[in-house]
């Protein structure tokens, strides 16, 4: 077995157990809500249209949007919003199948049931549910498969799942991880589907032993799958649990992994929640659901503080530290030393042929160029500032995943990209970054933020202080490059970075 695969499989117990717990809980809640609701709908005709319509509408909301919407609605991240989103998302097949299953029963049978003296509940329990069971269970199977698949999207809202493989794998170009994650999710879906199918078969054939055996088997398998969770949450090692957050790009994976190793060595018990959206992560920090993560001064300035002006110079760090503490009791422990700013990058050949060094040199060419960036950049004030300052007028603006931008410029799909200055790919794809003489782009110093609760944890602060001001842009870039281009794993790269900063 290759080392890469072994490394990924080592993560499986954790991811899979979370995934199983999330999926089965959502399915169970879904069944408990949907079956009675559907039964009610068959009794109260007036409810049929509204219930079916609402369930259908919920269904059309893209899974990832549904998950993301739950976070502001509930004001928290993690398993709960994921759970609620999954339940809502999976209701339609169960409700629809139960309603049609019951309404399709031959009316002479329900009449015979009434004529025998059954109450409405008895008809439901003794006649309608057993007769509609195959259709109802088909709906449950559909929902189960959906839930298993959609649960992989729970990663960005801070719930660990098999999606962690997929999200981090895509970001760090680790396709082994993507394949392990997808294959595990597919296998889980198939196994669950077949188990439910077998239970249904046993029930319809009245094979009691088989039905009970299968149910017990499913239960045992579920418990086995979730057992790492018990160990995780019940292992009373006495160590303090610290949750480290990370956004969705390589640098964040590497930094969170390095912090995790440092803190584990310092005797903390660590959970890393990676692949989280920027705003979700900051909210989680203010709610004490995440204890620490690395954010960038420009992001804090524009996104959280909502300042329209583009700050210049060193005042930023001072101002945002004060703002974070005053508004959110969040402690900014300090800058890590490097900056990861947006920087416009173009192919070296084009730059040299046309003598382009700064963004102002680019403006006259922009009329014939397409620009690519991550999902955020064109929505940020600094883009407006950059565009207006240098009178940029690109023919097209294309948002895409950050990890795909380099391939895009390499294939001439775009001609200029908003790179992150610490991207290892800049050099690897033979691009040059342009200077910003007018300082239209704000500084993006990497800063370490601590949640209100963690702010009073002296031991934690001490343990983390060792990395403040220690990481140079060169070191960060080479750590990113190791992952993005040299096929190193995140944990190898994190170890390398840790060695580099402590050998200074």
């Amino acid at each position, binding site marked *: 077995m290759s080392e890469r695969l072994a490394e990924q499989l080592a993560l499986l117990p954790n991811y899979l157990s979370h995934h199983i717990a999330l999926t089965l809980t959502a399915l169970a809640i879904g069944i408990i809500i949907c079956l009675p609701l559907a039964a009610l709908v068959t009794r109260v005709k007036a409810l049929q249209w509204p219930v079916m319509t609402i369930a259908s509408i919920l269904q059309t909301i893209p899974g990832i949007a549904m998950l993301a919407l739950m976070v502001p609605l509930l004001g928290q991240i993690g398993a709960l919003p994921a759970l609620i989103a999954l339940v809502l998302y999976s209701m339609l097949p169960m409700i629809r199948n139960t309603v049609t299953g019951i309404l399709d029963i031959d009316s002479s049978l329900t009449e015979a049931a009434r*004529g*025998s*003296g059954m109450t409405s509940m*008895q008809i439901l329990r003794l006649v309608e549910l057993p*007769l509609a069971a195959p259709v109802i269970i088909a709906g449950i199977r559909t929902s189960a498969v959906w839930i298993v698949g959609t649960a992989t999207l729970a990663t960005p809202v801070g719930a660990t799942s098999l999606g962690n493989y997929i999200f981090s794998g895509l970001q760090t170009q680790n396709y082994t991880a993507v394949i392990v994650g997808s294959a595990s999710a597919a296998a889980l879906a198939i196994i669950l589907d077949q188990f439910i199918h077998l239970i249904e078969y046993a029930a319809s054939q009245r094979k009691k032993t088989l039905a009970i055996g299968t149910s017990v088997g499913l239960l045992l398998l579920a418990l086995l799958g979730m057992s790492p969770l018990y160990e995780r949450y019940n292992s009373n090692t006495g160590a303090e649990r610290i949750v480290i957050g990370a956004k969705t790009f390589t640098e964040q994976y590497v930094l969170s992994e390095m912090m995790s190793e440092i803190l584990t060595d310092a005797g903390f018990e660590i959970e890393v929640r990676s692949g989280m959206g920027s705003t979700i992560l900051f909210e989680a920090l203010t709610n004490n659901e995440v204890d620490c993560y690395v954010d960038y001064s420009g992001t804090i300035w524009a996104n959280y503080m909502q300042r329209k002006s583009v700050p210049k110079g060193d005042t930023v760090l001072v101002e945002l530290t004060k703002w974070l503490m005053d508004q959110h009791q969040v402690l900014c422990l300090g800058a890590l030393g490097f900056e990861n700013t947006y920087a416009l990058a173009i192919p070296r050949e084009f730059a040299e042929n046309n003598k382009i060094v700064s963004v102002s040199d680019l403006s006259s060419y922009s009329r014939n160029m397409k620009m690519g960036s991550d999902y955020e950049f064109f929505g940020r004030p600094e883009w407006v500032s950059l565009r207006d300052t240098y009178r940029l007028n690109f023919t097209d603006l294309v948002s895409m995943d950050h990890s795909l931008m380099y391939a895009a410029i390499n294939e001439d799909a775009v001609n200029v990209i908003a790179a992150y200055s610490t991207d290892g790919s800049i050099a690897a794809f033979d691009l040059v970054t342009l200077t910003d003489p007018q300082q239209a782009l704000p500084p993006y110093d990497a800063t370490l933020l601590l949640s209100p609760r963690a702010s009073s944890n002296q031991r934690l602060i001490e343990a983390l202080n060792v990395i403040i001001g220690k990481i140079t842009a060169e070191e960060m870039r080479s750590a990113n490059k190791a992952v993005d281009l040299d096929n190193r794993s995140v944990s190898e790269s994190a170890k390398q970075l840790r060695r580099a900063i402590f050998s200074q």
Partner: protein
Amino acid sequence: MINLKNISKSYDDEATFAVDSIDLEIKSGELLALVGESGCGKTTTLKMINRLIEPSAGSIEIDGENILALDPVTLRRRIGYVFQEIGLFPHMTVAENISITPRLLGWSAERMHSRVTELLQMVELNPDGLRNRFPRELSGGQQQRIGVARALAVAPSVMLMDEPFGALDPLTRSGLQKELTRLHKLMSMTIILVTHDMSEALTLADRIAVMEKGKIVRLDTPANILQNPGHPYAQRLLETPVNQMNALTKLLQQSESADSQ
């Protein structure tokens, strides 16, 4: 005693009436046959008596009690009903089908078991061979007999039977007809029997009600109706069995004279 007073049922907001102002008194222990051509309102009348259908107008009393004021569930548990479509529950065994009402009434398992045996014997089926079969594993006639057994399960004082013997061969049919007469006498049940078979009505019933287009056009004993049909439609209904009988007698005479030659 069952007393229908001015009962009407319209399925279309009183544009037409499936049952049209029926007055009918059935004495306790009486077997009343309800005859009439397809669509004349027999099933509708029967279902109003156990409130599977609510009448549009009029009132129904059983033993002096207004049934429209009773809890329909309790009412139905006291009345046996044999459905025209039989309506056996496909997911239940023969035994479970028969003991459905006893189960609702909370009988013990042993009591239900012995009752099922008793009833299967009563409808001339083999209890050991059939009790654990599912309805789909039975012939049409067997299913119909299970339907009758199910209606008889709690020995109700009122039985409503909607063509209970339709799918039976003549021998089984006459066997069951005899059995029904015996039970009727024995348990002094009040029975309303819907049938298309005029000779069945003539031989089994204490009285016959002839329906046409939602109305009762003739109500009398079989003997009186035979003697004096009194209504053109009753006359026509009688023609079939009488013609058959005449044809048979003629055949018999011919074969006798052929024998004696």
